[in-house]
């Protein structure tokens, strides 16, 4: 089920601009890996290369390797659409489809890929909403528009939508940054549950959040604006927060810059 990701010598470009340089790391299955670092250092960029969303941006280009359980995602014969079914993503701002009901939002990934069996869809909707801790709040209004939920509920709806296609890996780009503390807590609890089954990578600016939810933490940094961002170090979360091997990591964590 859950898969490990091995990144080696990854360079990421926006047109001619090299945004990230020389990233190599291993992301463990059934664990939460947090990406931290100052704004603009390329956390989102790296995250988006893990499901080939980077190339959706005009001029977006990648050099290097990303292996998912040994299979190179950037090999010639790999279909990016297939990769995205295996590696799901949750975005910073909740983005339910405005024309769809709650039910259809959750079922969207399956429906748009041709699943028509209603019983199967209903089953997946219920399972995914339960998995996203949203079922009890919305079970009586599944046919209401998804945009009518609160921000935190919408974000959990987006998580339900992402897990409905049963990915192996779940990428989350600052999933709580638009949410209040209570919704944030709900999502952190959810992440804790989800890591039993998925490989999870989460970008966050919230140190406490990284410390609370992650098993592994990667710290990214950049020397100066206009320079490519780099991975400084990746290690177990307790080591990164208590005893990092790099001075830059310690400075960042203790709030001495950034």
């Amino acid at each position, binding site marked *: 089920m859950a898969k490990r990701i091995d990144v080696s010598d990854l360079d990421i470009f926006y047109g001619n601009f090299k945004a990230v340089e020389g990233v190599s790391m291993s992301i463990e299955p059934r664990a939460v890996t947090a990406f931290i670092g*100052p704004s603009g250092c390329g956390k989102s960029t790296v995250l988006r290369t893990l*499901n080939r*969303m980077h190339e*959706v941006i*005009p001029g977006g280009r990648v050099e290097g390797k990303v292996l998912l359980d040994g299979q190179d995602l950037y090999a010639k014969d790999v279909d990016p*659409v*297939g*990769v*995205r*079914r*295996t590696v*799901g*993503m949750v*975005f910073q*701002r909740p*983005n339910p*489809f*405005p*024309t769809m009901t709650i039910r259809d939002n959750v079922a*969207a*990934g399956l429906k*748009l*890929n041709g699943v028509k069996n209603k019983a199967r869809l209903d089953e997946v909707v219920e399972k995914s909403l339960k998995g996203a801790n949203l079922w009890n709040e919305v079970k009586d209004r599944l046919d209401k528009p998804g945009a009518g939920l609160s921000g935190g509920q919408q974000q959990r709806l*987006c998580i339900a*939508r*992402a897990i409905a*296609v049963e990915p192996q890996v779940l990428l989350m780009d600052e999933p709580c940054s638009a949410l209040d503390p209570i919704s944030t807590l709900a999502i952190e609890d959810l992440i804790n549950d989800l890591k039993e089954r998925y490989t999870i990578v989460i970008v966050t600016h919230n140190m406490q959040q990284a410390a609370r939810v992650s098993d592994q933490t990667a710290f990214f940094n950049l020397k100066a604006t206009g320079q490519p961002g780099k991975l400084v170090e990746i290690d177990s979360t307790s080591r990164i927060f208590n005893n990092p091997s790099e001075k830059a990591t310690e400075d960042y964590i203790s709030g001495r*810059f*950034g």
Partner: protein
Amino acid sequence: MTAITNDFPRDHSLAEPRDLDLGGKSGGRALKNSIATFVMWAAFAIAVIPLVWILVTVAVKGGHLILDSTWWTNSQQGVTARREGGGAVHAIQGTLIQGLVTALISVPIGVLTAVYLVEYGRGRFARTVSFMVDILTGVPSIVAGLFIYAVFVNAFGFQRSGIFVCFALTLLMIPVVVRSTEEMLKLVPNELREAAYALGVPKWKTIFSVVLPTAFSGIITGVLLGLARVMGETAPLLILGPYTKAIATDLFGGNMATLPTMINQDRDQAVTLPAYDRIWAAALTLILLILLLNLLGRLASRFSKV
């Protein structure tokens, strides 16, 4: 990352306390204000007066006829310029049929062109297409009519008929649909496209199942406004769609009445004849029809999701 330091050079003269001066409205500024207000209202009046004038004239001269139910049920068959009576149903039908067929041809072409330009178009070909649409926007309606006439009647030897009117109107409607649809597609947030891609939905499917439905009501608004615009066009009808007083619904052969050609029909008759009133009534009917389309268009935009 930038440390906030406290050693900005401070210009202390700015911080000196000064007496507040709130008194005495400046006379010059008040005058300018009055002049600008006056000019604005005058411009507004100049723009609105002719409009109201037209509406009132048309309503006064033609209003009594369209209040009669026969106006909406009878044609002009057998009615001469000197006789009262008859209706406009033949022309209303013709205008609606031709409008509908024009929309059926232009909407798919226009919407798909807009999808291409917004979602796929890159580089020189897309720029060329966009430029062509701009040119098409500027084509006078009589040129569109003559072009279709030259191609289908002169070159291919067809008889003039309703379908060619639709072709000419299509040329006029496509650019309107393309431009309005483009605007609506651009309003759909990129995040929705990315959300669909991240679920493993292919791009074309994303466009048809997520982007177009999100922009749907806006596209409908554009289509209705475009339709309202071409339904009042007259030049292509004069060239390609000969008038008849009878009800005719065959687009592919024979004459076919429309409201603009009906208005054109008896306009050289004496002002005192009954036919003259029917011209005003037909004009009023056309205005009401187009007003209705505009209202529907506005109504559709209320349901917009973007």
